[in-house]
């Protein structure tokens, strides 16, 4: 039984925390939050690339470190804790993971080294409007290798170099790699709940598109990509939730009301205990997800769903109740609570809402129990 980070992984995680403590303090996050022109923190991105994190799970032959997914989970946990304002998820959890899982040798050779080197930012362009996108409603189209249609919103769409785009070709849904810096691409930055992560509307008009994975498999591939991303995002959420609990605890131990610290009142104590319980449930489910991801286990769909559901719930609860523990101060712009509150929403929305994952989970359980 070895159901925890190894000593090496813990070391990596500690180092990541120290690194981000220095390079990504709240001031860096606020730099992006408060400046509408800034879509991410470029110096942090460069520093993260230099650390080798972008290629942590990319094989050495493609310029990565060739570490396992658990190492990537450890990094994700720390990035979430630091509310890092960089396109790490879009680039690493989605683009790199998708290309490793579904790309041709040529696609891998073209993309992975550039990701590892920090030269390429990725994006996933699925959504075309509010609500669930069903196959019959998909309107983006590829004809003769040229993509047309509108994707909204696309996380990091305005800063990415390459997007994975869901579109139909010959009436069948497929995934396509699109160079966003090329012809036929219009990008508009949009306002978001979490201004520390960028979103855009992408309008394609004859942009060059190259298929990723099989024809007609678009929706299945999106789900496969999101299964992997969900585990990694769960670690970001977990890191954020842990930090919310810490902040709330620190505040509760320092703030006095009626002559004693508010952390001594049962209502506050039990609220923090509730956060702790949710965070531990999230952590245990995330670890299982990490194992399934790392081992490419057949349990991945179930494990990813459970990890994402638990982590979304934990981060939402911790981020909203941390504001409450901070009282009036928590509602101000100056206190960091809202950075986490915003990020908890961004992370819950970016890869499908918890409700969809619950449905996916139960469908898997039905199948498993029927067998």
């Amino acid at each position, binding site marked *: 039984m070895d159901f925890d980070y190894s000593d090496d992984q813990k070391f990596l995680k500690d180092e990541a925390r120290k690194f981000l403590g220095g390079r990504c303090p709240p001031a860096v996050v606020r730099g992006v939050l408060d400046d509408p022109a800034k879509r991410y923190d470029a110096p942090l991105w460069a520093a993260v690339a230099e650390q080798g994190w972008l290629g942590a799970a990319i094989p050495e032959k493609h310029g990565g470190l060739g570490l396992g997914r658990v190492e990537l989970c450890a990094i994700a946990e720390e990035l979430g804790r630091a509310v890092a304002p960089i396109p790490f998820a879009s680039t690493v959890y989605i683009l790199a993971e998708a290309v490793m899982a579904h790309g041709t040798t040529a696609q891998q050779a073209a993309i992975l080294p550039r990701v590892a080197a920090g030269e390429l930012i990725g994006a996933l362009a699925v959504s075309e409007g509010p609500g669930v996108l069903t196959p019959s409603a998909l309107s983006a189209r590829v004809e003769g290798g040229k993509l047309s249609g509108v994707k909204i919103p696309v996380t990091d769409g305005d800063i990415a170099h390459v997007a994975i785009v869901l579109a139909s070709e010959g009436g069948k849904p497929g995934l396509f790699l699109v160079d966003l810096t090329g012809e036929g691409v219009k990008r508009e930055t949009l306002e978001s*709940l979490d201004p520390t992560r960028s979103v855009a509307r992408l309008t394609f008009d004859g942009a060059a598109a190259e298929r990723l994975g099989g024809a007609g498999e678009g929706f299945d591939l999106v789900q496969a990509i999101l299964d992997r991303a969900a585990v990694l995002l769960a670690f970001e959420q977990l890191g954020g939730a842990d930090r919310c609990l810490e902040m709330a605890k620190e505040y509760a131990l320092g703030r006095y009301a009626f002559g004693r610290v508010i952390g001594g009142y049962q209502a506050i104590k039990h609220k923090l205990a509730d956060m702790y319980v949710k965070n531990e449930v999230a952590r245990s489910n995330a670890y299982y997800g990490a194992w399934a991801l790392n081992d490419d286990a057949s349990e991945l769909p179930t494990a990813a769903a459970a990890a994402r559901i638990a982590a979304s719930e934990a981060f939402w609860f911790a981020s909203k109740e941390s504001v409450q523990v901070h009282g009036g101060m*928590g509602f101000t712009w100056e206190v960091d609570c809202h950075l986490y509150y915003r990020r908890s929403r961004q992370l819950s929305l970016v890869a499908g809402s918890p409700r969809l994952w619950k449905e996916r989970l139960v469908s898997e359980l039905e199948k498993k129990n029927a067998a």
Partner: protein
Amino acid sequence: MDFNDSPTEAAYREKARAWLVEAAAAHRAEHGEPKPNTPEHMAAAKAWQARKAAAGYACITWPAAVGGGGGTPIESVIFGQEEGKAGVAYGYFTIGLGMCVPTVMAFSDTDTKKRFVSPAVKGEEIWCQLFSEPAGGSDVAALRTRAVRDGEDWVINGQKVWTTGAHYSDFGILLTRTDPDVPKHKGLTMFWIDMRDPAVECRPIHQMSGGREFNEVYFSDLRVKDSQRLGEVGQGWQVALVTLMNERLAVGGSAGPNYREVLELARALPGEDGPALSNDAFREKLADWFVASQGLKFTRFRTMTALSRGQTPGPESSIGKIISANQLQDLANTAVEMQGEYGVLTGPEAAAGAAFQQSLMWAPGLRIAGGTDEILKNIIAERVLGLPGDVRVDKDVPFRDMPTGR
């Protein structure tokens, strides 16, 4: 068990409605519909208040002698309902007339009352309430703003926070600490102050929701006369309790989108299998929100019934904010999550004009303002159910010696 007015109430409502139709038309003809937070909006508000006062519809329960309507609480509620329907209502006077001026009336001399009450009723002067401080949120009495006696004057230094309307107010009632050597509730004194005094500085608070509706207010050697004192020296807490008791009767307004708006959103949104509205889990939530909203609405009706029967409603109304603030957060979050990735958008392309996203960012504040969930539950437990208060370690300790951590 019915919703109808008694004959007297119906007659009053009819009279009020008739007046409102005419008055609102005249008011609009004169002032148009200016944007909030503009001088024109303030001017219109003051004019409307003056018009109501002249007709006996301002401060309806107050004696006519001070400019009020000389009416009953239920008349006041009825007029409020009709005024809401007439579509002219301004919020600038709520705190002053609901909390501050009643305190002035209860604790000042005849001259002071004469000076202030009538202008306030007519909307000529606006008041704010200066109680909350950074060091004392839920624990109001832990405040530190110091007032030191200097001959016939007092000199005041310190800071208040979360003061609604400080920047447009003419006067305020200010709770200060005059004696730090006695236990905290015993060393407080209340004053009225002139908000235009140069020693008073207002700074807007940047909220997590992005807005700046509240203020910090700083006092730097603010000099006030002893005649501005409301109540005895050291009796400030008793005075403040009177102010806060009046807060209870102030009716909380609508707080954003409710089940109806989210039902409409879900009807239009595609879900996995038909519109999002067809999802049973969402439908259960919708049912719960409806039931809670109806529960609050009919609880208000019960309060009105008590007023109508001449009874005084109790602190039961505390249930309103606990439910509505938490529900707003849950409802807004559900509506946002239902949109999927699109839910992050807050610009012009956002669904429902970004109303749900705005509510999501505002709800945490609503859960704190006017008492956190925890404080409101304490109130219900102690004042309604009669359970004991918390163990108080601060009752007999001189304020100066109380641990504060900062």
